[in-house]
C-alpha cells in the first residue's frame, strides 16, 4: 500500500493533477440533480468511447477500398475470431448512440437546460447531434454493400437539387463523377479522422461548460430564469442544498453506463452484425436498398411527399430545423424551465415523436414500393377465382401477367402501392374501370398501350367480380336507362 501511495505522490509531484481532479470530482451539484433523469449525457459519452474502441478494432481488418471493403467485411464476419461480434457492437453501438443522444436532447429540452447561461452548451450539443448523424451515415457508407452504394446515390441526388451549387456538391461528395473508389476513401477519411476529431473536441468543450456553469438544477414550476439573478440563485442553491458530484450523483451515471453497455453487449450478441447485404456491384440491380434504422423516417418522407414539394422540403426543411435548434436558447433564454408550465414544448416533443415514429413504422413495410416479384411469386388467392367464367379467369391471368399484383393486393397478398382491389367493383363501374386501366391517373400508370382490347375486356371482367358477397357491384344507372329500349334488364347485380 505504501508503495502505491509513494508512486502516486511521485507522479502527482510531476503531473500536478490530483487536486484538479479532486475538485472536479467533488464539485457540488444540486441535490435533486442526482437523478436517473440526468444520466443520458454520460451514457452518450460511454457509448461514444465504446464506438471509438470498437472502431479502432475494426480498422485492424477493414480495407477502405471499393474493390475490397465488402470482402474484408466478409472476412470479419466469417474468418476472424469474433470479428462478427465487434462489427455487431459497432453497428448496434451506432444505433444506441443516436438513441441516447436523442433522449439526452429531449431531456435537456424538457428540463429547460438550454436557457441562460447554458446557451452555448446547447449549441455545441446541436453540433454534436449533427456529427452523430454524420457518423451514422458515413458509417453506413463504409459498410459498402448494395444498400450503402445506392444510399450514397440518394445522398448525391438530394445534394444535386441545391440550386447552382448542386452538381458541384455531387462531385465533392463522390470524389469524382461516379460512385467509386474515391467515394469510399473520402467517407473513410470523414468517418475515421475528420468527424471523430471534431467530435472529441466538441465533447470536451461540452463537458467543460457543464463543469464550469454547473449542471442544470431540477426545474421547479414557478422558479423563473432571469439573466440578472440566475447565477446568484444557482450558487445559493448549491450552498444550501448542494452535494458533491462524487459520490452522491455519479453512482447513478456509473450504473446506467454499466446497464447500457450490458444491453449493447446482449443486443449485439443476439442480433449480430448489420449485413453486409449484397456486393456493391452497380450491375446487380435486383436490390431494394433500405437505409439504416435512424434514417428510415427520411426514406418514408421521400416516398410520401408530393413530387412538387419534395425539393423545397429537402432543401428548406433541414435549414429551418437546424436554425430553430441553434436559435432556441436565444428565443427562449429566460423564463419558466419546468415542463409542467411549458405545454407548447411538451406538445412539440410529442408531435415530433409521433411524426418520426409514424414515418419510421411506415418505412418498416414500405407500402409505397411495388413488390417487384408479386406477379410471379404471389398467386391470386383461390377465393377470387371460384365460380368464374372463362373470360373472368382470363382476366385474372392478365392481372397477374401485366404485374397489376406488384402494386395492388388481393386478399392482403401483393403490393400496397395502389389501393387493394378486393372490392374494387363496389366503387367503380365497368366504364370507370376501363378508363382507369387504359388511362391510368391518380398515381397509376396508363396501360392503354400495353393491353390489347381483348386483354382489357378480360381484365375488367375479372375486376367486376371483385366485390364482397351480397354487395352488388357499382353500376351506372343512367347507362342502364339509356340501354333500356334495347335491353330491358339493366346491368344485373352479381
Amino acid at each position: 500500500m505504501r508503495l502505491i501511495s509513494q508512486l502516486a505522490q511521485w507522479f502527482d509531484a510531476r503531473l500536478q493533477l490530483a487536486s484538479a481532479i479532486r475538485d472536479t470530482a467533488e464539485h457540488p451539484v444540486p441535490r435533486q440533480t442526482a437523478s436517473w433523469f440526468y444520466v443520458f449525457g454520460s451514457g452518450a459519452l460511454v457509448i461514444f468511447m465504446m464506438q471509438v474502441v470498437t472502431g479502432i478494432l475494426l480498422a485492424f481488418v477493414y480495407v477502405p477500398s471499393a474493390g475490397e471493403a465488402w470482402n474484408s467485411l466478409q472476412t470479419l464476419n466469417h474468418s476472424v475470431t469474433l470479428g462478427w461480434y465487434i462489427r455487431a457492437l459497432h453497428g448496434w453501438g451506432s444505433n444506441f448512440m443516436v438513441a441516447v443522444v436523442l433522449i439526452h436532447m429531449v431531456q435537456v429540452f424538457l428540463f429547460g437546460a438550454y436557457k441562460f447561461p447554458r446557451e452555448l452548451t446547447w449549441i455545441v450539443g446541436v453540433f454534436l447531434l449533427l456529427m452523430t448523424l454524420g457518423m451514422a451515415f458515413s458509417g453506413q457508407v463504409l459498410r459498402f454493400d448494395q444498400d450503402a452504394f445506392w444510399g450514397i446515390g440518394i445522398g448525391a441526388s438530394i445534394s444535386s437539387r441545391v440550386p447552382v451549387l448542386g452538381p458541384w456538391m455531387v462531385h465533392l461528395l463522390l470524389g469524382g463523377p461516379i460512385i467509386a473508389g474515391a467515394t469510399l476513401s473520402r467517407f473513410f477519411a470523414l468517418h475515421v479522422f475528420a468527424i471523430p476529431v471534431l467530435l472529441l473536441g466538441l465533447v470536451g468543450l461540452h463537458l467543460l461548460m457543464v463543469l464550469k456553469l454547473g449542471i442544470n438544477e431540477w426545474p421547479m414550476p414557478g422558479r423563473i430564469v432571469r439573466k440578472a439573478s440566475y447565477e446568484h440563485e444557482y450558487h445559493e442553491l448549491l450552498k444550501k442544498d448542494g452535494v458533491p458530484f462524487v459520490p452522491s450523483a455519479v453512482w447513478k451515471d456509473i450504473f446506467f453506463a454499466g446497464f447500457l453497455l450490458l444491453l449493447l453487449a446482449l443486443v449485439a450478441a443476439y442480433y449480430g452484425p448489420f449485413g453486409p447485404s449484397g456486393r456493391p456491384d452497380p450491375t446487380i440491380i435486383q436490390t431494394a436498398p433500405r437505409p439504416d434504422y435512424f434514417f428510415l423516417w427520411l426514406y418514408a418522407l421521400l416516398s410520401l411527399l408530393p413530387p412538387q414539394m419534395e425539393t423545397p422540403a429537402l432543401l428548406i426543411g433541414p435549414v429551418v430545423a437546424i436554425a430553430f435548434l441553434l436559435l432556441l436558447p436565444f428565443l427562449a433564454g429566460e423564463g419558466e424551465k419546468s415542463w409542467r408550465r411549458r405545454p407548447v414544448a411538451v406538445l412539440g416533443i410529442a408531435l415530433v415523436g409521433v411524426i418520426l415514429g409514424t414515418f419510421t413504422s411506415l418505412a418498416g413495410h414500405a407500402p409505397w414500393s411495388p413488390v417487384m416479384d408479386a406477379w410471379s411469386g404471389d398467386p391470386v388467392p383461390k377465393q377470387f377465382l371460384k365460380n368464374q367464367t372463362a373470360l373472368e379467369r382470363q382476366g385474372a391471368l392478365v392481372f397477374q401477367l401485366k404485374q397489376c399484383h406488384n402494386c395492388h393486393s388481393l386478399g392482403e397478398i401483393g403490393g400496397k402501392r395502389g389501393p387493394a382491389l378486393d372490392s374494387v367493383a363496389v366503387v367503380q363501374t365497368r366504364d370507370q374501370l376501363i378508363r382507369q386501366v387504359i388511362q391510368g391517373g391518380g398515381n397509376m400508370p396508363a396501360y392503354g398501350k400495353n393491353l390489347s382490347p381483348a386483354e382489357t375486356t378480360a381484365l375488367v371482367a375479372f375486376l367486376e367480380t371483385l366485390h364482397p358477397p351480397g354487395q352488388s357491384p357499382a353500376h351506372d344507372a343512367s347507362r342502364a336507362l339509356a340501354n333500356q329500349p334495347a335491353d330491358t334488364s339493366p346491368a344485373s347485380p352479381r
Partner: protein
Amino acid sequence: MTLPENMTRRALLVKLGIVFNACVAALLAIPILRYLLSSAVAGRKSSYRNWLSLGSIEQFPEGQTRFATFTNPDVQPWDGKTAQSACWVRRIDAERLQVFAINCAHLGCPVRWFPQSGLFLCPCHGGAYYEDGSRASGPPERGLFEYPYKIENGTLLIQAGELPTPGSPAASLTAAGKEFPCG
C-alpha cells in the same frame, strides 16, 4: 515610463507575428483547398465525352429493351466492381434507340424494366416510367435520364461519364421524359 513602451514594442511584434502567420496560412490554404475541392472544381473532364462501348448492336433486337453494362471512363485499379455501370437500351427500330441511365430520376435507385407491363419500376420510393422513359407515376418529377448514343461499325457507343442526378449537367444534356399525353 520605459516599461509600457517596451510592452508596446513586444505587443507590436506579437501582432506582426500573427499577421505573418496568417499570411503563410493563407498561402498554404490555396494548395490545400485546391486539393480538397479538386474533384468538384476540376471541371468536366474531357473523358466524360468519351464514347463507351455497349457491345455489338446485334445484342439489342428491335422492339425490345435490354440490360447492358459498360466500364466507366475514369477508373482506378481499386474501384473493383464499381468501375462498371449499367443502363437500359431500348431499340425502337434499326436506327433509333434510347439508352436510359439505370438511376431513377427521383433519387438514383436502380430501375428495373418489366416487359410484361411495359414499365420501368423503381424499388425504393415507387417511381414508374413508360417504355419510352417518360414518367408514369410516383415521386419522380421527370422521365429517365438518357445517354447520347451512336452506332459505329456495328457497335453501340454511349457518353456516360457521370452519375446522372436531377441537378447534374449530364441530366440536362438529354431531353427524355415528356409527360405521357393522357392521364
